[in-house]
């Protein structure tokens, strides 16, 4: 089959009047890890939605541009067909099925599995792997997902996506709300599944982790590609260091960027 590479070409997206993406192009070669950086509202999530075809759930539409995966046009497909093509997204903000048990959430994840990965045995194996990565999910198999802690839910969301053994994994801020250790665990996981041949498009606030994982990276600003290139180069650029890596070395934030004048609020007389 053709190389499982994702090509996003000149894509523009709008939510009604709101322009969220403007002629954005991103490439994810087979087996690569590509990071997308950008501030709040930059359009990162929108980009992933455009690929996974879930824009319509938010009243968004692709106004121009093409998206192809493994030589197949994705734009125009329904979300489930995209999944069938091997592209799976971990949505922003966990979105676990709160009323279903952890186990059922994982079963739901397995629904999207393709070809050889279908069937009970494959699913069982996949579950094994997920349980290795996140033991807590095994411990809580029969707890309702909605009752998990924030981080546990994040792990579940990640594990659920892995159940389908995707060829391309879209991650939207996987380390959100995770303890440092767990964030590292996620990073390892990404490396590992990437090593097993899954390419990854990674949206991550924690630019330090992102750039460590990624082979190449793209910086979005208000819906446009501001910078792009090999992760190493970007990590070195002052621009990126100041704007995004500030997170990592918080020891000296105030020196380079003068802190904004501290706001004041007086007590309320009552």
């Amino acid at each position, binding site marked *: 089959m053709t190389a499982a590479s994702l090509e996003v070409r000149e894509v523009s997206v709008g939510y009604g009047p709101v322009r969220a993406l403007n002629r954005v192009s991103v490439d994810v070669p087979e087996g690569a890890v590509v990071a997308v950086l950008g501030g709040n509202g930059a359009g990162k999530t929108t980009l992933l939605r455009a690929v996974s075809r*879930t824009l319509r759930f938010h009243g968004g539409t692709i106004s121009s541009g093409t998206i192809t995966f493994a030589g197949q046009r994705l734009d125009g497909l*329904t979300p489930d067909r995209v*999944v*069938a093509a091997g592209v*799976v997204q971990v*949505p922003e903000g966990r979105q676990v099925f709160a009323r279903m048990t952890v186990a059922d959430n994982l079963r739901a*994840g397995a*629904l999207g599995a393709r070809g050889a990965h279908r069937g009970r045995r494959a699913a069982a194996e996949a579950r094994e792997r997920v349980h290795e990565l996140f033991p807590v999910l095994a411990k809580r198999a029969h707890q309702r997902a909605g009752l998990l802690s924030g981080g546990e839910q994040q792990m579940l969301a990640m594990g659920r996506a892995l159940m389908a053994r995707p060829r391309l994994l879209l991650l939207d801020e996987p380390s959100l709300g995770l303890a440092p250790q767990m964030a590292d665990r996620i990073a390892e996981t990404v490396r590992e599944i990437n090593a097993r041949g899954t390419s990854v498009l990674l949206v991550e606030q924690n630019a330090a982790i992102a750039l460590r994982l990624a082979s190449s990276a793209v910086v979005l600003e208000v819906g446009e590609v501001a910078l792009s290139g090999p992760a190493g180069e970007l990590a070195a650029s002052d621009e990126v260091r100041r704007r995004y890596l500030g997170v990592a070395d918080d020891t000296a934030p105030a020196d380079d960027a003068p802190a904004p004048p501290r706001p004041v609020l007086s007590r309320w007389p009552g």
Partner: protein
Amino acid sequence: MTTFLELLLSGLSIGSVYALIALGFVVVFRATEVVNFAHASLLLAGGYLTAVLADDIGFLPALLAGAAGAAAVGALVEFAVIRRYRGRDHSVLAIVTIGVDIVLLTELTRQIGTRVYPMGDPWGGEVLAFGGISVPQTRVAAFVTASLVIGAFLLAFRLTSWGVATRAAAEHPETAALMGVRLGRVSTSAWAVAGALAAVAALFLAVFPTPGLERGTATAALKAFPAAILGGLDSTTGALVGGLVVGVTQSLATGYQSELTFLGRGIGDLAPYLVMLLVLLVRPAGLFGTRELSRV
């Protein structure tokens, strides 16, 4: 004593019919979180088709055709209306189904007019009698069918991916889509299944001891509401238990009417609702319903 047993049995038997109807509510609710007020018209549609076809193509084929027809109607409703709704508010969708029900019911009653259709069923007016107690064969059939069908659904929801897919789609469509669930197909199938169930229920509503199917038959759906609720709207077991409880309550309240005159006569179809209220006071999500969880 025999009277009590007899009332109990007749209650259980009619209750199993309610259980079938309630199951219809449950299936749709699990897949779309919608309380389906249009179930009554699906019921009538299925029964009508079965009845008109019965004497041409024979009972069983007619029943199958009726089920298929009702399923088609259900699927159509889902495709033409439910799926088109963009909002998130489920009580709005519930109200939409009221609109659908009104349209369908009006059309069906127009078709049925003043006729009363025999269902052409094999059981006729036969009864099983033992120990001075007699139960219509139709009701025995109903009981068996209900138990089998509901058992089947329990397994389906537990074991098949359909079960997971429906619940996922109901709870979070977008994420379900990201898991490769075909939203359209899932909810359409649920509505179709509900339609088929309605057809079966309609059969048992319109056979002995009731004379046949007519425009008023669908009103029985109202009696299945308390059944579905006190069992728990999202629980298959609940549908069965709820149905039986409602049936028995109703039957006893009617049978011992003369002893209950202080409640006013004709308490029969009020009683199930009172029982439901009592249950809800103790268990706000019904006997088997999943309690709504609060975690922040």
